[in-house]
């Protein structure tokens, strides 16, 4: 067995594991055939790494690097990247500008380490000048990013990888399976006997150690947004790591965690992210969306 992945057989399913996109990844497969589980986990591993390599902003050899270092020059992008840009643009519009893939550079001002390190308003303002999807010229297949701006697909990439992987595995097997990359989950068809996969929702107070609840998951996509350990505390105000790209400041009174079930992982991910961006209106927003959700206030 390749040493970057492991496969374990449970009583009525197999589980393949590896690390990608800086998080633990799991493939649960409704089979006891270890060879098949290994084959499918390999597919997942390859696809996760492919997407990570292609869209990570931490690399200097991919399209994101090229766009972020284009100094205002147009960059020709491939079809898959173009689809991501189209999708990011639609998310920007659907969220009324709250979801913005150019807002990543706000992290230069905000470091969410649980401290009271709040940036000055001047610092935030100077960064805001370089934020705003509206300033990006996206004319398929060319993207022109004004100098000083950056795009970051971190808010879409992992969920996209889950759906894309799940699509590939679906082509390779008839068994039911579940793809879980760091809590972003897809399960395109139900299990044998119509049993649910039971998903534990991480307790934001004791992240990684306790479950705040359990979700029975039959089919579709599931994703959770939350601020777990990433926040700042000053004068008793808790600043979540969800930043509003229009103000440059964290969204106030957002829930600690929002879990959404939708048709696909990326849809669930966007809805949970949009809900967080709504701050105190998160729950009323979710109610209007006609989806299953769990909210930890």
């Amino acid at each position, binding site marked *: 067995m390749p040493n970057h992945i492991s496969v374990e057989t449970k009583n009525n399913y197999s589980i393949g594991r590896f690390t990608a996109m800086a998080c633990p990844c799991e493939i649960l497969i409704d089979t006891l055939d270890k060879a098949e589980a290994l084959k499918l986990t390999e597919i997942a591993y390859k696809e996760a790494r492919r997407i990570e390599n292609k869209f990570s902003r931490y690399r200097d050899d991919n399209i994101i690097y090229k766009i972020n270092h284009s100094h205002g*020059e147009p960059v020709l992008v491939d079809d898959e990247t173009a*689809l991501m840009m189209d999708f990011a643009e639609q*998310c920007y519009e*659907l969220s009324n500008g709250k979801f913005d893939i150019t807002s990543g550079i706000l992290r230069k001002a905000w470091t969410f380490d649980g401290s009271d390190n709040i940036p000055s308003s001047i610092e935030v303002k100077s960064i805001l000048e370089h934020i705003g999807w509206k300033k990006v010229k996206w004319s398929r297949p060319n993207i022109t990013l004004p100098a000083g701006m950056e795009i970051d697909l971190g808010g879409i990439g992992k969920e996209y990888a889950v759906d894309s992987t799940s699509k590939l595995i679906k082509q390779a097997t008839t068994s039911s399976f579940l793809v879980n990359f760091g809590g972003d989950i897809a399960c395109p068809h139900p299990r044998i006997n119509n049993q649910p996969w039971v998903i534990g929702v991480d307790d934001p107070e004791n992240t990684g150690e306790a479950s705040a609840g359990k979700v029975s998951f039959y089919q579709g996509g599931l994703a959770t947004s939350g601020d777990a350990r990433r926040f700042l505390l000053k004068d008793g105000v808790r600043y979540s790591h969800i930043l509003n790209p229009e103000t440059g400041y964290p969204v106030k009174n957002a829930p600690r965690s929002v879990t959404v079930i939708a048709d696909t992982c*990326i849809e669930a991910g966007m*809805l949970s992210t949009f809900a967080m961006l709504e701050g105190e209106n998160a729950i009323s927003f979710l109610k209007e969306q006609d989806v299953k959700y769990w909210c930890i206030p």
Partner: protein
Amino acid sequence: MNNIKSKLSIATCTLLSGTQVQAADTADNSWDLNSSLLYYSEADDRVSVTKAIAFLTGDLSSEDSISVNLVLDTMSGATPTGAVKSSSSSVTSFTGASGASSSIAGGASVDRVNFSDTRMGVALTWAHELKRTHKISYGGSLSVEKDYQSYGASVNYSIESDNRLNTYTMGFAGTFDQIYRKTDGTPEPLSNVEDNNILSDGERYTYDFILGMSKVFNKKTVGQLNYTMSYSDGYHTDPYKVISQVRLVEDTNSGVFTWTELERYFESRPDSRFRHSIFTSMAHQYGGTGETVQTAYRLYTDDWGITSHTFDLTHRTPLSESSYLEPHFRYSIQSAADFFRPSIIDDGTTPVILPEYASADNRLDETTGITIGLEYGMKLGGGHLKARGEYINWQHAKAEYDETTAMVMQVSYQKLFD
């Protein structure tokens, strides 16, 4: 707040299926309006046209879009008829050896005819995306003026390559035109103007076939190549144009010989025309701020004997983030139609045999044209404002009016509403 799940589902579906579907958000209510006002004026009080254009395009659904093009022209002026200039004639009345006579009403200019007209045009196009890279569009058009009516229909099919770098287009169009004079039908070709032999309205059918290809060579260079074949059948003559029969006549007082008009006939053109044209253009962006140079060349040839070459060059220089200046230069040369002649010569010794086809229209003459223009564009109120001015000069080799000079001024505004 509203429910965005359905719109998000469509967007997600697009992303994951790799199928390009427009976002429902834009499909619902995104309209692009392009309006413009153009003024064209020829020197010497010849033709002047004021053109108002409105072009509206929008999405009906994720696969369908529609565009509406409205044009309103008001035209007026005095256009050369093809007759020799009255000033070159030292007599106002002449009786020829043949016995025919022609008289010219004192003071009236006959080499030019005053006109004024209004044209209204409407064109509708419906484009439908069959699958990700295949698109079909259907168009219909109608144009009406006092002496001309035109009805057209077209279908275009375009295919994009999987990487969307190449686009191939094929199209057919059919047009039916009705041509007549404001007051009556059409004059009998090569009949004497005096006789006033009027026939019924002229009708013409035109069929066009277009093959096109555009290619993105790299992120800064795009090219285009089009071939158009067009066949038209029916009435091609201009019902207002005439041609003079002239003879060198000595003025008995001064002893000076001048070309003098003896007869005047309505012009006559063949009843079919077969045209081919090849158009190629290339745009290239360079430099740090987006300077763009665009070159184009068009080769045109038809079975009337006209061949033309047109070279076009524009250069766009951004002035700031939101404005640019674009000089434009065009040069064209055209050979004359086989049946073009400035007049029908009567040598006074052998009887004149009228040719089958004859026209003195300076647009069919051997012509060299130069256009110099400048366009300024800027972003304004969420849209784009453009203003351009052009100077055009045509030098005609043999026509009675051997030069046409015109100015074009255009202001347009384009805005996307959503």
